């Protein structure tokens, strides 16, 4: 199978009766980069959570990298998640540790040795242009720099799939564009990416597929809300 993400008629109902997703079917090809858009509450985060097994679908099938997630048991989730790099709007960094230690975390979890960790962390920090900040704490960095630390952490293990939930939501347009260029570079070397975002002007200038959600269902990308003049 050459799809990295495969959703087949997936529905998600949260406890309390909220239908966040209804009958969603789509695929993301291996090596493909796509954007996930939709109004607030459309179900973008829910779709990403189902992909990373942070939530389980109520109905339907989610197959990631050839693996049916319904067959992944609770204790198998950590191993499953290690094939996915995740990036968040709020950066989700550990503020009591240095930039180096933050980026090293996924490798430490995998039990890599110190030499491998140092080499790969520096490579990841170099990619995002933060090699000189490795000894600093995230709190002293700007928003854009913090997000790049988060990105370095997501790519340090060279995962085949990267999920990003509004990675530029807290950044100004210039920084947002930088981050998107970074993603484009990962995609250029074959990494699959699914990026949820509100930022229509930002994605319109990029030649990638747009998956549009409305009220928990797939909608025609042509219905994209037009970019509002700033």
């Amino acid at each position, binding site marked *: 199978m050459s799809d990295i993400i495969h959703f087949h008629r997936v529905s998600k109902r949260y406890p309390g009766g909220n239908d966040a997703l209804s009958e969603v079917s789509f695929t993301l090809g291996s090596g493909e980069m796509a954007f996930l858009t939709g109004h607030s509450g459309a179900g973008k985060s829910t779709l990403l959570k189902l992909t*990373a097994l*942070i939530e389980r679908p109520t109905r339907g099938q989610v197959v990631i990298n050839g693996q049916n997630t319904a067959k992944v048991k609770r204790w198998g989730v*950590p*191993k499953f*998640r290690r094939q996915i790099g995740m990036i968040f709007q709020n950066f*989700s*960094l*550990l503020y009591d540790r240095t930039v180096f230690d933050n980026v090293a975390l996924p490798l430490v979890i995998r*039990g890599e040795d110190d030499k491998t960790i140092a080499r790969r962390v520096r490579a990841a920090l170099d990619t995002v242009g933060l090699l000189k900040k490795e000894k600093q704490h995230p709190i002293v960095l700007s928003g854009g720099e913090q997000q790049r630390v988060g990105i370095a952490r997501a790519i340090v293990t060279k995962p085949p799939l990267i999920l990003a939930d509004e990675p530029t939501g807290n950044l100004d347009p210039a920084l947002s564009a930088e981050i998107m260029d970074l993603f484009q570079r990962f995609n250029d070397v074959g990494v699959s990416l699914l990026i949820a975002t509100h930022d229509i002007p930002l994605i319109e200038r990029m030649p990638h597929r747009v998956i549009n959600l409305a009220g928990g269902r797939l909608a025609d990308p042509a219905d994209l809300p037009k970019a509002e003049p700033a």
Partner: protein
Amino acid sequence: MGKYLQRHLQTALFSLGKLYRRPVATVLTATVIGITLALPAGLHLMMQNVNSVGYSWEGTLKASLFLNKSVDEAAGQALARRLQSEDGVANAQYISRAQALEEFKALSGFGQALDLLNDNPLPAVIVVQPRTTQTPEQIDSMMRKLSAIPEVEQAKLDQQWLDRLFAILSIVQRGVLIIALLLAVAVVLTVGNTIRLDIENRRDEIVIMKLVGASDAFVRRPFLYTGFWYGLLGAFVAFVFVTAAVILLAGPAAKLSGLYQSSFVLQGLGFSQTLLLFAVGVGLGWFGAFWTVARHLGSVVPR
């Protein structure tokens, strides 16, 4: 394997570092655990000392063998010599009827009154000192043998108070055991509660670790080491408290045993007991952490 040990060492030091960065909270918690451990350790030590007081006073134990009046002085002396060579006997001394009367006159103050008696009412006595190395049971069986000697009319061991002491001690010992169990639960709860707060405070951190693929074992490990350190520090505090108490009590105890011509010396925690204290502290700390982590870590999941 070396890599695995290195990771554990790193986690242990990381947990210790976390404690070191909150010195006041750490010292307070360690002190609470220390006091909780010091109580049963101190009680146990006290019991052991009282026990050894009992045994050391056993050295001053004497059995009095009252002889038949028909046994004359020569036969009595001979019997005393024979008993002297018996196994469980440290010393056997013959006291003739006349000597007994003299002693009694001097001690009782009835001197003149006794002169009025025609006949000496006192029997000859052999005073036997049992060897101190014997158990109460061995002394018992020796006493039965002594009273079975035909020349002996009655054998009396002045040990009732000792029997009572040992009986009371065995009850108190059980009480100490119960208190120790309750306090062990207290240590587990103390560590557990501290770690529960720690988990609450580090909720975000735990969620992030799980998001980047940390296994439960990985997330759990630093908390288990935190429990380990609390146990170790608590045991150390307990050791200091108990040792300080022993030092403070050693002087008065020496004075007291001097008054009773006893060879008793107040004993502190020995090497194996100190080791046990630390093992129990670490074990309870680890268990308290494990139990709490098992209950609370599962509920900390990414949303």
